[in-house]
């Protein structure tokens, strides 16, 4: 039986969800008997091939985030929003209380200790969105895994349910928004 292909990425996130995923420790060995990874920071593959499951950490804060998210949606049969940022914008969305200009001026011009103040405008840098958005506002999301980060047990649970062909369900003690 071919292995189930899983891809993962972090958009506007802190990689904390990926760290929590790796907190499943030795259970990843058992998981790898049934699963192989496509694009993921774990193996550094840069592009998503057709996959069964895509795990998305992080919100959408720039044009590249949107591009990567759409690539995942096109290639993944099942897309899972992982963590607070992917689900409601999370901590990155705190910048929505300010205009983008205010954020850039604070970070690159006015902040104490800034040397040679200028707002970066290299063409290689992805353009920032005027507001941070959760991913379900741009693509269809199949399942949600809340938490900041979701506990390792929750990753094991949702992947095990899917591998067994069951509808994923999260026990109450694994449901947290913080």
């Amino acid at each position, binding site marked *: 039986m071919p292995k189930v292909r899983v891809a993962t990425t972090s958009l506007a996130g802190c990689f904390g969800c990926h760290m929590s995923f790796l907190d499943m420790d030795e259970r990843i060995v058992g998981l790898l008997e049934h699963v192989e990874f496509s694009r993921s920071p774990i193996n550094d593959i840069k592009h998503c091939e057709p996959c069964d499951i895509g795990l998305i950490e992080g919100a959408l804060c720039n044009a590249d985030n949107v591009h990567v998210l759409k690539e995942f949606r096109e290639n993944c049969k099942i897309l899972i929003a992982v963590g607070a940022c992917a689900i*409601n*914008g999370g901590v990155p*969305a705190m910048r929505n209380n300010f205009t983008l200009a205010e954020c850039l001026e604070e970070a690159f011009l006015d902040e104490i200790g800034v040397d040679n103040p200028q707002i970066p405008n290299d063409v290689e840098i992805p353009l920032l969105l005027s507001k941070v958005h959760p991913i379900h506002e741009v693509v269809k999301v199949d399942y949600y895994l*809340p938490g900041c980060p979701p506990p390792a047990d929750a990753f094991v649970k949702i992947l095990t349910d899917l591998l067994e062909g069951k509808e994923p369900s999260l026990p109450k003690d694994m449901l947290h928004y913080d």
Partner: protein
Amino acid sequence: MITIDGTEVPFEAGQTIMDAALAADIYIPHLCHKPGLSPHGSCKLCTVDVDGRAVSACTLPAAEGQKIENNTPALNEVRKTITQMLFVEGNHLCPSCEKSGDCTLQAVGYHLGMLDGHFPQFYPRRAVDASHPTLMLDRDRCIMCELCVRASREIDGKDVFAISGRGTGRQLIVNSATGKLADSDIETDDLAAHICPVGAILIKDHGYEVPIGRRTFDLHSVAETDLEEIILKKTVHHDQDDESVEKEGGMYSA
């Protein structure tokens, strides 16, 4: 007698369905209701089915023979949708909120198994008031339940808060010449300062005394704490003459 989900529940004249349910240790999800304060009927989480009609349990008087459905999958699904709307209408970003774990809105989300906000985020930008030395007001988290409005008027004997405006312009306002909390009559010991079910009214300098993961709703479900609160209330002395509540009684642990 009324019947809630097939269980016969006694009631006294003047009690609402919510009063009768709480007295019988039956949890009906709610956010804007608190025993001891006049009912408000605004959050609609306590929507129950009474003889085929959807009504708010906190405002409808109990009446002989009512057949009430409360804990049904259909009603809980509607309540979850209401909770999702409350979440997306404010900036309820739990990881950055110091009320996380002690927030009743969050706990209701857990109780109803809410996994996402479903609707597009509104991301409101309302004024923060940090003028008061010991309290602060973050209006982006206010759910307009008016618990603080009622607590201030009915228990504290003051008139510190009100809701002003309509639609998306609605927000909590403060009764003082400047509109700032610092110039109002509110004091740290007032019930109005502690009753907020979300992270809109916060006590400064105490936000992280209990670590995340060890807080009320990290350890207990909202149904458990809600019914416990009622038991505590029964032991609290309530003086009808001056309408004051003994604050040591632990009536409002929030």
